[in-house]
């Protein structure tokens, strides 16, 4: 199922469990997407 993409790595269940859903979630408009290069401070809770 993993496509042939350079550098792609499969995540372990532990790594996937580290990507948490946070309660605060803004609409990811194009402006927000671009600004995330320098994150505003909201993180996925680990």
């Amino acid at each position, binding site marked *: 199922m993993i496509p042939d993409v*350079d550098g792609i790595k*499969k995540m372990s269940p532990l790594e*996937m469990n580290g990507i948490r859903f*946070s309660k605060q979630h803004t609409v*990811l408009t194009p402006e927000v997407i671009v600004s995330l290069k320098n994150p505003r401070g909201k993180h996925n809770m680990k």
Partner: protein
Amino acid sequence: MASLFTDFLTVLGVRHTETYSDRRFAQMPFQSMYGLANLLKEYGVGVVGVTVPEALRKDAIRKLPLPFLADTADGFAIVTKLTPDGHVAYMSQHASFVVSVAEMASGWNGVALLAAADSASSEPEYSRHHIAEMARSVKRWMLMALSAILVCYAMFSTGLYAHWSAWLVLAFDCVGITLSWMLVQKSLGVRNKAADAVCSVLEEGGCDELARSEASSFMGIFKWSEVGMAYFSVSVLSMLLFPGTMPALAVINMVCLPYTVWSIAYQKFKAKLWCTLCVCVQATLWLLFISYLSGGWVSGISFSNNVLWIQLVVLACCYMVALLGVNRLVSAIEKYFKPERS
């Protein structure tokens, strides 16, 4: 109510019902990408989590099977397709956007959940849940129809039908109830297509941001949306059951008007963000005032009349009881549905 999970299922073409699937999403034991992957497997969807180094993300976006979930610092985006002109279409919070590959690559942190569904992928016990959801829809329409019949009966039996302004007040109160209900849903993170459509008029995402901000509640005790629900609901009931309270209702409406000034000023100068639903509620309060004024209900106010004062006190109690009830109900709903990302 819809969530990231049901949006993803829709894009994958997996048969599901929003009610059941959103509940499963909210109740996942692991509120993480791992939990979501396990849930998708229950639906017969093959999943794998992958990471892509920064330098290779632009290439990966073009090659990863669509749709996939792309993780960002601010949440997941569902990448749905590549447009013919090389841009990326994605969904976030039930809204669709298009950005360039470079822009998506800059916001994406390289973590993705890939999924593969086939014709056998489906929500467990889908048929049973679908029938239940249809029954819920029928119940909703019946509620609206019977409520309309009762309202018309009340208007005719009390004689209010003869006052054109009373019909206006009734209409605006109903609009107020609808808008307040949409705001309550926003504060709970509940999806409502009509609310999303209204909210996008002045500023995309403005309603969501403000609904979750500190300014959306009165000293953290009551949400303004709950206050609106209580105010408009009690006003309608009072008008239909006790038409003699119309002058008192007009007084209370006038007392609410300064709040509209504060709300608009806050959005313009402090939050620098417009909540279309909130603006509509303020407009509704002013339209109600105009209706009371033009219908002669304001001129009927006499503060030397003890009956008016008694009505004001009783109405104040009714508003408070309704507000406490709505607040309790909303708190119970918030407590029942675990914190979720939608």
